[in-house]
């Protein structure tokens, strides 16, 4: 379905500098802040067709198309392109690597100009609102006043939701997919164990591993393996692996990798090391733990009163990382503040990962919703 946006390039912009630093929720000041981002499609003359993709924990700016090898596409290539739910024939899609990330945007592995050393754990803690500040600064850089929509799954959905609260009416729509407005104890527990795997790795050196010429690979791979289990449903694991033995018909009986699922997880862990930084993993999981956008009822009421932003909240029935109850809680909050909201629980066997996959009911819901939002904003109809 749909075609590719083709070859794309990551661009960079310095959005905050010494004269105009990024002031975080904590009061800390950060400068410079450079952001890596990609765009797909064309911004229309009214600058009214921008759709911002907010990525999840381990995503990056390269959401669609390829960087030279057409077989290696961006992480949301099935979602973004001509004729796809984010339709680059009509939408101008922007995706930026998050603050605190490690794929081109300023984060703990960047050099702190004050010390000439990498920030490491001296990088300030930040919030989802801070992530939104940077997205909004990028909109300013691109001279987009009012994005048609912000879209994201998981941590990405949290940003779309927070954006709608921090800048009432700025977004035409917020698409909040398999997200949560308040992590459960179980959610936090999984992230806590993942972080302990990193923090407890002897090569971690308090976050200054790069200076020591080491990397906490064991811990980071373990964190990824653990998290990956929570992204799949029991059903999808059963279908994919069952109790199959890897590369053999008979079990080998021992403690080495034997079952197919073990081999898969090990591969997930190892391939993750090539593209992710342990400190970024700590910061970006922590930002989710503290996320609580409806904590202050009076502030929520002010933010949502009469907002023109439209909301699509989606969950997947087999997602147990952020199950449907998390989405329903968001719906309940919005509805109780008289905000009309559209909510669907999409049937999919793939668990939390579903948001990255081509689930037809999911894609047609997003496409249909964005069409309706676009109609009201004067964006031309889908071809």
């Amino acid at each position, binding site marked *: 379905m749909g075609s590719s946006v083709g070859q794309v390039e990551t661009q960079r912009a310095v959005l905050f500098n010494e004269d105009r630093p990024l002031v975080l929720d904590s009061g800390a000041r950060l400068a410079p802040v450079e952001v890596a981002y990609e765009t797909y499609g064309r911004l229309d003359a009214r600058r009214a067709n921008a759709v911002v993709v907010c990525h999840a924990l381990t995503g990056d700016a390269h959401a669609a198309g390829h960087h030279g090898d057409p077989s290696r596409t961006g992480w949301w290539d099935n979602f973004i392109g001509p004729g796809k739910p984010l339709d680059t024939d009509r939408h101008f899609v922007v995706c930026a690597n998050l603050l605190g990330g490690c794929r081109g945007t300023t984060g703990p592995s960047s050099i702190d100009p004050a010390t000439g050393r990498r920030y490491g754990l001296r990088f300030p803690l930040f919030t989802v609102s801070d992530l939104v500040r940077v997205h909004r600064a990028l909109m300013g850089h691109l001279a987009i006043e009012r994005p048609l929509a912000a879209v994201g799954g998981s941590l990405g959905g949290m940003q779309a939701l927070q954006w709608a609260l921090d800048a009432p009416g700025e977004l035409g729509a917020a698409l909040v997919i398999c997200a949560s407005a308040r992590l459960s104890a179980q959610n936090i527990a999984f992230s806590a164990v993942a972080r302990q795997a990193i923090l407890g790795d002897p090569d971690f050196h308090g976050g200054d591993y790069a200076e020591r010429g080491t990397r906490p690979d064991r811990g980071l791979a373990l964190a990824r393996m653990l998290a990956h289990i929570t992204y799949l449903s029991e059903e999808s694991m059963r279908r994919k692996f069952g109790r199959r033995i890897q590369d053999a018909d008979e079990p080998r009986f021992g403690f080495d990798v034997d079952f197919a699922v073990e081999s898969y997880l090990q591969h997930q862990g190892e391939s993750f090391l090539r593209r992710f930084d342990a400190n970024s993993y700590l910061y970006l999981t922590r930002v989710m733990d503290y996320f609580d956008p409806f904590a202050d009822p009076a502030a929520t009421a002010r933010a949502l009163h009469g907002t023109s932003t439209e909301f699509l909240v989606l969950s997947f029935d087999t997602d147990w990382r952020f199950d449907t109850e998390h989405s329903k809680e968001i719906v*309940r909050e919005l509805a*109780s503040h008289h905000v009309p909201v*559209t909510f669907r629980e999409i049937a999919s066997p793939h668990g939390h990962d579903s948001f990255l996959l081509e689930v037809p009911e999911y894609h047609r819901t997003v496409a249909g919703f964005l069409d*309706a939002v676009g109609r009201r904003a004067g964006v031309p109809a889908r071809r």
Partner: protein
Amino acid sequence: MRPDLHVVAGLVPAGSRVLDLGCGDGDLLDHLIHRHGCAGQGVEASPEALHACVVRGIPVVQADIDRGLPDFEDGAFDVVVLSQTLQAVHRPVLVLREMIGVVSFPNFGHWRIRAQLALRGRMPVSRTLPYAWYETPNIHLCTIHDFEALLAREGLAATRRRLLDDAGGPAPPWVARRPNLLAAGAVYLIRG
């Protein structure tokens, strides 16, 4: 829009916040939002109907009202509409108790219905009840008398009643003389 929905819409104050339980394709909400200045919110279970709402830009929440109403805060809506839905829910009393608003349903006491059962000995099929017995979603059909008895039992008061004809439009005045026999359906505005 179906004629009965016009009657329902006529009982919804302009500019109110409306929750439509079992909103189907969103016809009524579309009308209320765009013609009556209402803020509308639909609730629906059928995936096809949900998608129809999404495509036309009607806010709709997926929920099966048989499994409890969505957990909206009290006072989030001014009017709750239950249009041709009550007879299809498993526990209509629980739904009625939780809502204040507009309810419409087909009258099983209508003379055509009675005649089909009495003279032909077959389960009635009519314009308001178009389903064969084996495929009908309507599991709690009632007459106007039945419905009013239930309101009395539950201590609910109907402040307005509109009677419907076969086509779903407003019934002529003489129907009010024997509504339980002559009206094909009814719409009530209920206050708790």
